[in-house]
């Protein structure tokens, strides 16, 4: 698998009234062509910020340090016009809430064709023909007449399909999906996941799938990165992560997923405590306040990422086996 995106030591900071907030600290990611990377993180932990930084879409008070290379070309620090030539063409992004992600004042057709008209200088009629094909590819029937309609005339799942179609128009190499199914109900969620898998096979698009839902990860990801408090906790291929996880946080996440094949009279486990407050992260490991295996040094310093097996890394001091202690009540 050829290397596509290489993120090294990426940190994202926000200047706020409470001082500098470190949303993402020193994370590394690699993405190969056509690969599906799942990114897991609890809500409010700034998991989207890594990828907004990659897109150059951080809020005005945010900035990123480190390195993001696409095909070896540094993306951080590109000018707005250089960025805009890359966005949509090489990197595309779809967002959590399809209800608000489309412009309510413009027709679906306008919002789709403008991508091709701008990036590929296509004529409107040609762009419309392509838009119709793209809508058909995401299984929207009667695509021709749909072009003239407005987003509010679509359901949530349909809008997310439109978003996907719109972002696949220029056939980007990487599609970043920021919780694209969180706002949708479960059956629609399954359809969208199936659709993404289908598109990936068809176009060879690499997908970054950001979610807090491990069930979704299991359905789509090949490799999974688990973050906590903006730091990388563990990264492995999806089978290893589910079967042979080596980080207490991963363990906590997996144990708090309800399972159909276990005794369902038992209470579902949860990770005690609250998701991290990015403005007040502890000095050491951000997960240490909630960790069942916490040691004294965890609160003092952040463990380095260690390679456990090829393609499997984790950041934890805990040397023994996991699973001996119950996490949470």
């Amino acid at each position, binding site marked *: 698998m050829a290397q596509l995106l290489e993120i090294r030591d990426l940190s994202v900071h926000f200047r706020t009234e409470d001082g500098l907030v470190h949303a993402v600290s020193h994370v590394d990611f690699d993405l190969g062509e056509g690969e599906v990377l799942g990114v897991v993180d609890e809500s409010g932990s700034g998991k989207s910020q890594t990828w907004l930084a990659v897109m150059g*879409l951080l809020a005005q008070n945010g900035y990123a340090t480190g390195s993001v290379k696409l095909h070896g070309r540094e993306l951080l620090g590109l000018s707005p*016009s250089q960025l*805009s030539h890359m*966005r949509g063409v090489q990197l595309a992004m779809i967002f959590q809430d399809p209800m608000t992600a489309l412009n309510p*004042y413009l027709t679906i057709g306008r919002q789709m064709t403008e991508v091709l008209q701008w990036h590929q200088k296509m004529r409107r009629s040609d762009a419309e023909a392509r838009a119709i094909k793209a809508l058909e590819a995401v299984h929207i029937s009667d695509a021709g007449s749909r072009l003239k309609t407005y987003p509010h005339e679509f359901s949530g799942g349909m809008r997310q399909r439109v978003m996907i179609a719109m*972002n696949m128009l220029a056939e980007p190499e990487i599609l970043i999906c920021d919780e694209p199914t969180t706002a949708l109900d479960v059956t629609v969620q399954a359809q969208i996941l199936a659709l993404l898998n289908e598109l990936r096979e068809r176009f060879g698009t690499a997908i970054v799938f950001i979610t807090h839902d491990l069930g979704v990860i299991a359905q789509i990801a090949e490799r999974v990165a688990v973050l906590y408090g903006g730091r990388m906790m563990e990264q492995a291929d999806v089978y290893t992560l589910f079967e042979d996880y080596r980080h207490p946080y991963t363990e906590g996440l997996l144990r708090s997923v309800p399972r159909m094949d276990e005794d369902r009279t038992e209470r579902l486990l949860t990770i005690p405590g609250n998701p991290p407050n990015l403005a007040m992260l502890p000095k050491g490991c951000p997960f240490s306040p909630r960790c069942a295996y916490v040691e004294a040094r965890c609160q003092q310093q952040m463990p380095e990422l260690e390679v456990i097996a090829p393609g499997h890394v984790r950041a934890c001091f805990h040397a023994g086996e996991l699973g001996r202690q119950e996490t949470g009540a």
Partner: protein
Amino acid sequence: MAALIRYTLKRLLGAIPTLLIIITLAFFLLRAAPGGPFDMQRAMPPQVKANIEHMYHLDEPLWQQYLNYLDSIVHGNFGPSFVYRGTTVNDLIRQGFPVDLTIGGLALLGSLLFGVPIGIIAALKQNSAWDYGPMATAMLGISIPNFVVAPLLILVFAVQLHWLPAGGWGHGRLEYLILPSISLGLPMVAYMARLMRASMVEVLNSPFIRTARAKGLPERIVIWRHAMRPALMPLISFLGPAVVGIVTGSIVIEQIFGIPGIGRFFVNGAFNRDYTLVMGVTILYGMLIILFNLLADILYGVLDPRVRFE
């Protein structure tokens, strides 16, 4: 289009009860105020007063007068003015209203022409001198009442610099229009600039703008195609209140500049208990405000595809 016409007709019909309430309230409130149109400093001989009151039907029972009044305005007749003898209220309105329409229209147009771009620039250059400067000035513009601004403008541009006339109408020649329109429009410019800035900032932070940027569209397309229309919506809602502001503002401005508009009649009428004149102007203002609110709603519906006329 048919839906739009139906909607407009429906709204116009709906305005009738509103107007009726305005008329009724104004009619009885006016009558409840002490004094009458023919109370002079020196008492009139009772016989003379009775004769005059008889002539204007003021000796009839109040409900009778009310019904008569309703009947006459249904026929488009606002009755004779009590104070401006020999003239009807219709005449006075016909005379004064075009004057108000001119300076009011200029003020509104000017405030849109300046307020909107200033607000947009401030929003695009958020937290820079381009933002803080105009916004601080705008705050000042909102806080300073027009009866302070107008004399200041006269002092500088008429008395000191002799660029423009200090007052009067001059048959509506442009140089006579400038200072009154500016005095009337200045707080509006300020208000619109702030409104426009706030709404543009909000729109620029909305998810669909992020989507547009994520698609790689250049910033000018993002702003002009994606952000402009939604950002203008609050301004359209402001159209109704803006007209109210212009109407009330014009009453003061006309006094200061000695402009023969309706506001002056309104004030004189109120002081002199000129029942029909005050009623006529009240109804006119009421209709104006209803009309502009309707216009705002229609514009809203035309610009926002989610709004349906029903």
